[in-house]
């Protein structure tokens, strides 16, 4: 896997300047095996073997990379977490656990995480329905080869009852700077949770919000069809984007010079910094992304900004330079990376 930007961050798809990515995951378990946390080592190994074989027989994933967690070092695992391909929990455990990553990283499967199989599809922009179709197809292909744990009454059975039913979690990573700046974000987040959806941070469950990026997802998985889950997420996100748009209008009307100043100061730091923390890159790129949406900046693209965010993550930097680095050294190479991306962007757009 190259240390470039994930292909699903290509800036394609509707609303791509505000919706970074769309993701759908399915929780599935093999019939006849205890769930992963309850399985004996030999049962876990057998579940892994059965799953691996089924995935090799799945057309959409058969050319994917199979990686045993026990074969990966700490840095590689962290790298996969940063690419949103495995969870923190999966990175911490190793025996009889694996991940299969499809050709362009849009499809991937964690084996023996909390459930035997966690299928995932990620797409750029507002493409959650496409993500659902991709993962649905993979699910059908796997289903032809193995028997899933399923109940007529309760659907796909999961180790955690919150996932039982469809096993679906659909989410979108949305950039909401104007709602944050105008102080309306809490109200909007409250509204989202009242509509039965959840809001999480950049790395999903249990993570914090950075760079004004919010992950909005469904909270319930039983009693609603997959399509309904996806459509209601689409509806809510569109509504939130509408609020964000209105808040941006207010900012432009009442605080244009302040926003312009904030955007260009952020741009300046990205362009000239010599030492920068990841959190700061998140916050600076957020300001520049807002400037891009408000047509104040045209010398950098959405892809360029996505690239800065991803490539400046700790494990990404260390992988690229091929060695372990402490936080202070990382801050220096991160600044180099960010400046380089920006210079390339300026060269492409013919500005700067």
């Amino acid at each position, binding site marked *: 896997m190259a240390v470039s930007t994930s292909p699903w961050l290509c800036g394609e798809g509707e609303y791509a300047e505000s919706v970074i990515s769309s993701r759908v995951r399915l929780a599935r378990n093999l019939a006849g095996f205890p769930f992963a946390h309850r399985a004996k080592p030999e049962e876990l190994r057998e579940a892994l073997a059965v799953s691996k074989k089924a995935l090799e027989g799945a057309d959409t994933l058969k050319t994917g990379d199979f990686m045993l967690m026990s074969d990966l070092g700490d840095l590689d695992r962290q790298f996969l977490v940063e690419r949103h391909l495995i969870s923190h929990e999966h990175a911490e455990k190793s025996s009889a656990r694996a991940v299969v990553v499809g050709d362009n990283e849009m499809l991937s499967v964690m084996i023996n995480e909390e459930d035997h199989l966690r299928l995932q599809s990620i797409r750029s922009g507002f493409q959650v329905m496409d993500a659902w179709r991709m993962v649905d197809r993979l699910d059908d292909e796997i289903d032809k080869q193995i028997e899933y744990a399923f109940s007529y009454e309760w*659907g796909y*059975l999961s180790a955690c009852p919150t996932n039982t039913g469809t096993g679906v979690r659909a989410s979108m990573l949305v950039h909401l700077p104007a709602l944050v700046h105008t102080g309306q974000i809490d109200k909007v987040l409250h509204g989202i949770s009242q509509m039965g959806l959840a809001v999480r941070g950049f790395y999903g469950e249990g993570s914090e919000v950075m760079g004004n990026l919010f992950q909005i997802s469904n909270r319930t998985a039983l009693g609603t069809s997959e399509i309904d889950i996806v459509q209601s997420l689409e509806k809510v996100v569109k509504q939130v984007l509408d609020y964000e748009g209105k808040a941006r209008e207010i900012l432009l009307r009442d605080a244009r010079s302040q926003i312009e100043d904030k955007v260009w100061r952020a741009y300046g730091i990205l362009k000239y910094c010599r030492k920068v923390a990841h959190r700061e890159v998140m916050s600076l790129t957020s300001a520049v992304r807002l400037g891009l949406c408000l047509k104040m900046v045209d010398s950098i693209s959405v892809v360029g900004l996505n690239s800065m965010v991803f490539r400046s993550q700790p494990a990404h930097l260390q992988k690229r330079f091929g060695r372990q680095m402490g936080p202070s050294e990382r801050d220096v190479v991160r600044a180099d990376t960010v400046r380089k991306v920006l210079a390339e962007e300026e060269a492409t757009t013919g500005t700067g």
Partner: protein
Amino acid sequence: MLCDNCEKEPAKIHYKEIKDNQVSEFHLCEKCAIEKGIQVPHNKQPFSISNILTGMSEEAGSDLSTCKACGLTYKEFRDGGRLGCANCYEAFKENIKPLLRRIHGSNVHIGKSPRSSQGVFEKRREIEDLKIELSRSIESEDFERAAELRDKIKELERQQEGDQ
């Protein structure tokens, strides 16, 4: 970074306060944050099954029931929030049913089903849909339609018995 307040403990809680259009940033240790009445976020899952389970009134003795397939006790499930195997859902059915309703607002699966169960599953859904239609047509006193539906349901149920 040390806590802004006590300047002894490492700062773990970072937050911003917006007051009169001025943003101030604070870095506090957990103890000082709690003293100041700031809600300390939990790193663990914000939505814990154990919390819901503890909050639910339980029938006496259900803690002792055990899943015969994997040996998980209901108490272990209550404490850990994870079921041990597919059979646990059967073993603890009486407790799981209200729990699922509590979590999802429903305890009936609607949505896709595995290939192995297709046909059977689809038929069951069809029967349920027809039953809903039946009760509607009775309410609206469309007895002709109701009779038709009743026969259709009977036929499907007979087929279903044949399948199983």
